[in-house]
């Protein structure tokens, strides 16, 4: 289970963040509350992804795991990095639109 979490953690946070944004925009259409909640959801999502990135990068060290463990760490770290960029990107409309 731990390896699956590392592998899919970043992407799961990204997807969960997206569905929250959609929910806020649909529940409070045309109100500033939707923007505020969107930005409020963005901060923990970014923090969680950043933590995952830090954790997976550490697991890539040779002393921490074998070949397969490092491979999972690599993919997980990239997933977390992509999630950080994607979360920032998809939250931008809350500031700009």
């Amino acid at each position, binding site marked *: 289970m731990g*390896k*699956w979490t590392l*592998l*899919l953690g970043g*992407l*799961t946070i*990204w*997807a969960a963040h*997206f*569905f929250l*944004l*959609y929910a806020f*925009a*649909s*529940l409070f*259409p*045309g109100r500033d509350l*939707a*923007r505020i909640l*969107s930005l409020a959801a963005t901060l923990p999502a970014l923090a969680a992804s950043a933590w995952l990135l830090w954790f997976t990068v550490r697991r890539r060290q040779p002393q921490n*795991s*074998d*070949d*397969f*463990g490092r*491979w*999972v760490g*690599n*993919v997980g770290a*990239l*997933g977390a990095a*992509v999630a950080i960029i*994607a979360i920032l*990107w*998809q939250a*931008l*409309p*809350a500031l*700009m*639109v």
Partner: protein
Amino acid sequence: MTSETGFDPKLYERFPAPPRPDSEIADLKRIWTAPGGWARITAVNNNYIGLWYVGAAFLFFLLAGILALVIRVQLSAPLLGVLPQETYNQFFTMHGTLMMFLFAVPMMEAIGVLLLPQMLAARDLPFPRLSAYAFWAYFIGGLCFFMSIFAGLAPDGGWFMYPPLTSRTFSPGINADFWLLGIGFIEISAIAGAIEILVGVLKTRAPGMTLARMPMFAWAMLVFAGMIIIAFPAVILGTLLLELERALNWPFFDATRGGDPLLWQHLFWFFGHPEVYIIFLPAAGIVSMLVAQLSRIDLVGYHLVVLALLATAFISFGVWAHHMFTTGMPTLSISFFSAASMAVSVPAGIQVFAWIATLAAGKPRYNAPTLFLVGGLVIFVMGGLTGVMLAMVPFDWQVHDTHFIVAHLHYVLIGGAVFPVFAAFYYWIPSLSRRALSDRLGRIAFWLMFAGMHVAFLPMHLIGLMGMPRRVYTYLPGTGLGTVNLISTVGAFILATGIAVVLFDLARNFRHSVDEGADNPYGGGTLEWLSTGLYSTRSIPLVKSRNPLWDDPDLSRDVDQGRYFLPYSATGHRETLITSPLRAEPQYLQFMAGPSIWPLLSALFTAGFFLLLTVQAYTPAVISGVLAIPSMLRWLWDTDRPGDIGPVDVGAGVMVPTHVTGPSTHGWWAMVILLVVIFMMFLMAVFSFFFLLGIHPGFWSQPQDRWWAAIVVALYVAAAGLALFGRHLLTRATSTHWSPTTQVVFAAICAIAAYAIDWTNWRGQGIDGELSAQGAMSNAFLSLQGMLVAIVGLMAVFLALRTSRGLLTRPRSNTFDLIVMFLLYTAAQGSAVSLILRFGPGAG
């Protein structure tokens, strides 16, 4: 090396073991033989089912292609009368529906069923009878569905069937019912196939084939199957609701009674956009694998491509509303969807760059599969670019529902899926046929198809920008649309000529053989190029790299000499080695079911049930549905054998058990996946409930006597408790033979009682299904729950029958465990339904 399951990796050092006697091969052949003559249709070996599956999908591709040619003839000049308007509507609806539902998704599943066992060196996928059922259900259902066009009864509402056009008022005939029941049923077959593939890829890989060493096609199929599990329940629910609205007048999509047509669009596109990636990802897996194999090097950026597949799967569920930019959604919402739609092109871009880099770094040759790969890549990138254009909301407003969209989707799907499938044909057919296909004919076919594709669809962008809407059967002279449309039609025929050349090549050279393939003409390095029979490979190799045949030139010979795992039948039955999901460590030996008529009959009767409902032959439909139940139970009777054989030697003294229970079993995984499917349907129903409530709260009223929910929930809790108690009793040697099963039977009675009370109480509320969306949604919830409770009842009967025949193993039994899991889920969902109906936000 770390272990995932407690398996000692040092045991791997025993391989390759000394060669085994050739006499053992005769045993394998005898055990895995398929029936001959007409009885061949009862075969369940992936070699046959997979091939028939591919053949059927290709047949539907050709049929849909013929419809497309007639459509293009109709549009080749203004005011032509080749197709009357109604028939034209049926043709384009059938073309889209066949291509999406009967060609694209099944073709990918079919290639998976055909090739995955060989690629993973499994004897077969874990549920061969489920594969057979999925194939027959799809083939029988698909053919009957297609026949509707000859009776003028084919659906005519477009492949996404938007209400209110498809509601009873505007589509009073049974055409729409054919789509809703036919496609809904075929999606069930797709889910069956996805469960098979998901469990197969996770649990039947050759030892040592960790996730990091898996062929890219297997990775793609894993992601593909996972996406089907999440996405397809939405469309199954949607089709169910629309059919209920049409049959029983429950107004889910009727805005005058609290429903909303936009609900359909949400449900459909929550499935529909991931569907595009469901089609694209396996094809991308084929491309990733083939560019590396044909360039004779490792794929550049393997882990990046894996990440790209996973990222596509996740974010593709966040783009459904980009099909709805013109529906007046809140600006902020569509901006989020626009951002996600742009972001989803990034993973596709990563894959494209990895493919280009692999082609550039390797030494690809000028042959048919390489041409199809590179050609497909070019076409797909062009389609991707127009996709990014369409993610811009103002541009989308401009070209929405014009031929620009038609051009875009054909570029994406033909480049992203059709060309890779043809590459796969040319690359892999030598492993299935005594003769390879002709490379010369393949190259001719490619150039015709490549040129035809551009001539047909490039002008369509222009046609769209000139303002011609899609789905109109003709246009007026003097609009300037005649010449471009004629060019497009000529292109369609050039494309069709290319496909005809492939057909000719297949007829001339394809000679199916399960054990005499035409060697390995492209020098592939993955396991499907080991010599195989109906039992797959002689022994199951230990995998140490992504291209084992390149890295160990002796591997093929050693496998043939039986120097790896399972070089014989360890139990005298059909069996395969089950390995762990991450590191593929041997866990246990699974018995596999052999040939049987029952999956075929189950498919026939389930197809009969749905299709006879379509033509409103209710009595034969019910008879057919009732007959399907014993057929399925009889098919399942042979599974979960009592564990009367102890641990066995699977080669070089490595011992594994033959009877395992709990979370490591293939059955447990399949049940969990099935419950995810059911939960997704429930989740979509909850979304529908809140969506309608949010839009039309005035149609919601407060239920009376809400305390009845307490009785319902208490009974469901009792059902769950009894089921768990039964499972506890099973492990105790002191309990009598019958007592655990009796608890499950009582649990089922409690669940049925809970449901009956819930239903009766709700019927007395006066919130009628025909009056408002609240009544309709409540009835939908209760109908879904009723199906689960009925299945629980059947399961209890099945368990009692098995117990009476002494087939219940102790202290643990897989059948028992899985039934208890299903019961617990049913109780949880039933309680949730009862509470949502009476205490949900709309209940006051």
